[in-house]
């Protein structure tokens, strides 16, 4: 499919990203510059960084793919994923930003170590858990990049992965969060403008909004209902799914760390609403392209490839058949790449921060120079990029499933220690350790049992009535409460320093 125009457009896009990396590298003097962009992000850079970080490969390929497979009952994703940005800013961001400025936090693990008076145990558990879930999430992102490049250029998977890895890795490695934030600004603008142009064309081509709904209702009446009568997406499942998306994404390490890089807390005033409106509208349109794609498949306009994750290709085929102009395909391929790369770069940098700052500087070698920490950050970014690339060579059946698994594990692992730490003065170090450990282990177990449809004690875990992450979340809450009741309390001085209490802004 690739022609010279396509190759040129993609090449220009990659060159712009590399240029941002070179420009940003000149601003990097310290580890703080590299990992939190010198706490200098303004309103729009921050809002678009949050959108770019949350808007991942799933947002373009997975969201429309899920719409194609299950219709309107999955539309809740388009409300609660954008709402995750607001949840993160309101319930974590305001307080963390204020405390971080006074205490000089570089990562949210700094907060956990401070709040729970656990400079080694909780910091290392939290960093290791963060690295594991970020790697799972990263595999999903690389799989999405590979799908796009393979579709566009008809090249082998390993080559598609290598190209994507090299470009993202280079600008992230040399430019740190400055490069990631400014690349996200451009990527998010491309993404949002692109979706607002692309999606209506596909929907129009399929016959329009009302026609698409009428046709999918004839295929299966449940596809136009707000939930399914049984199986996945029943009302109860939808509630657990909404919690997983909103809270799980909000406390994901690559998302929550962004709040430390904002210049002024006043930007948190309108950022939640602005992000929700922009990203929410884009997500609705994306989901609807999946429904429009279903109508086109039923009408015989095109057939999806005979692969196990065929639904992830729906938006790409929708573009291809709605837009007969060759040159435009490349532009839209850039849009998809922008979505994926804006998350991938932030994930790699987060893994670099947790390894170099939390594990190396704060635990293994406290006397390490700033220069050596900075160097290690860059080495880890490179290693995580190539490590995940290798893991992505055998992508999972459905992209959305893998990414949801990552979000579900993040929810069970981090939500309780953060929320209890910020709002409950009774939460203790041992409570946080128990909650995080049991949340991580039980979510991996429940996720695997559910994903592989395993039957245990005469019960098939593929048929769980709620999203798998809800059960480990309950385990984490119980562990935090029970263990905190019987273990040593955090000192009042630390609780005051970390602004712990039942308020968002200090009264």
């Amino acid at each position: 499919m690739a022609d010279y125009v396509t190759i040129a457009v993609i090449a220009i896009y990659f060159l712009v990203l590399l240029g941002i990396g070179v420009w940003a590298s000149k601003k990097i003097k310290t580890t703080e510059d590299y990992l939190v962009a010198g706490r200098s992000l303004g309103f729009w850079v921050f809002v678009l960084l949050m959108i770019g970080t949350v808007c991942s490969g799933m947002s373009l390929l997975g969201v429309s793919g899920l719409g194609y497979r299950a219709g309107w009952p999955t539309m809740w994703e388009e409300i609660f994923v954008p709402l995750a940005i607001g949840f993160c800013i309101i319930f974590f961001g305001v307080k963390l930003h204020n405390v971080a400025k006074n205490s000089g936090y570089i990562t949210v693990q700094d907060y956990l170590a401070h709040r729970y008076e656990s400079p080694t145990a909780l910091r290392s558990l939290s960093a290791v858990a963060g690295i594991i879930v970020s790697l799972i999430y990263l595999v999903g992102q690389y799989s999405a990049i590979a799908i796009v490049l393979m579709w566009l250029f008809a090249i082998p998977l390993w080559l598609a992965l290598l190209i994507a890895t090299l470009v993202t890795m280079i600008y992230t490695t040399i430019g740190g969060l400055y490069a990631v934030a400014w690349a996200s600004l451009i990527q998010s603008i491309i993404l949002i403008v692109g979706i607002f142009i692309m999606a209506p064309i596909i929907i129009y081509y399929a016959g329009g909004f009302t026609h698409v709904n009428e046709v999918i209702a004839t295929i299966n009446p449940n596809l136009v209902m707000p939930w399914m009568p049984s199986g996945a997406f029943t009302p109860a499942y939808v509630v657990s799914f909404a919690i997983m998306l909103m809270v799980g994404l909000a406390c994901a390490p690559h998302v929550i760390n962004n709040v430390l890089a904002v210049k002024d807390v006043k930007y948190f005033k309108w950022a939640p609403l602005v992000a929700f409106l922009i990203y929410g509208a884009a997500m609705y349109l994306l989901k609807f392209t999946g429904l429009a794609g279903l109508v086109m498949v039923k009408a015989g306009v095109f057939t999806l490839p005979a692969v196990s994750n065929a639904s992830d290709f729906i938006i790409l085929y929708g573009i291809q058949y709605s837009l007969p102009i060759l040159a435009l395909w490349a532009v839209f391929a850039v849009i998809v790449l922008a979505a994926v790369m804006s998350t991938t770069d932030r994930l790699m940098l987060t893994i670099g921060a947790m390894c170099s700052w939390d594990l190396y500087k704060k635990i293994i070698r406290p006397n390490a120079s700033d220069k050596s920490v900075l160097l290690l950050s860059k080495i880890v970014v490179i290693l995580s990029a190539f490590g995940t690339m290798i893991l992505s060579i055998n992508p999972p059946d459905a992209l959305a499933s893998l990414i949801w698994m990552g979000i579900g594990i993040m929810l069970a692992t981090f939500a309780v220690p953060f929320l209890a730490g910020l709002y409950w003065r009774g939460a203790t170090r041992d409570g946080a350790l128990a909650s995080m450990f049991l949340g991580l282990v039980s979510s991996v177990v429940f996720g695997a049992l559910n994903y592989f449809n395993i039957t245990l004690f005469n019960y098939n875990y593929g048929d769980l009535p709620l999203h798998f992450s809800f059960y480990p979340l309950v385990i984490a809450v119980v562990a935090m409460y029970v263990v905190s009741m019987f273990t040593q309390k955090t000192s009042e001085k630390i609780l005051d320093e970390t602004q712990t209490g039942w308020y968002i802004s200090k009264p």
Partner: protein
Amino acid sequence: MFGLPDITVLAVGGVTIVCVILLLYWGLTFRGHD
């Protein structure tokens, strides 16, 4: 409406509007501390 059952329009539309109202309320009432 739009080829959808009323329950779908009410449920999805209603939750979306509630979210917008809550975030608008946050914006109008938030006074940050630095």
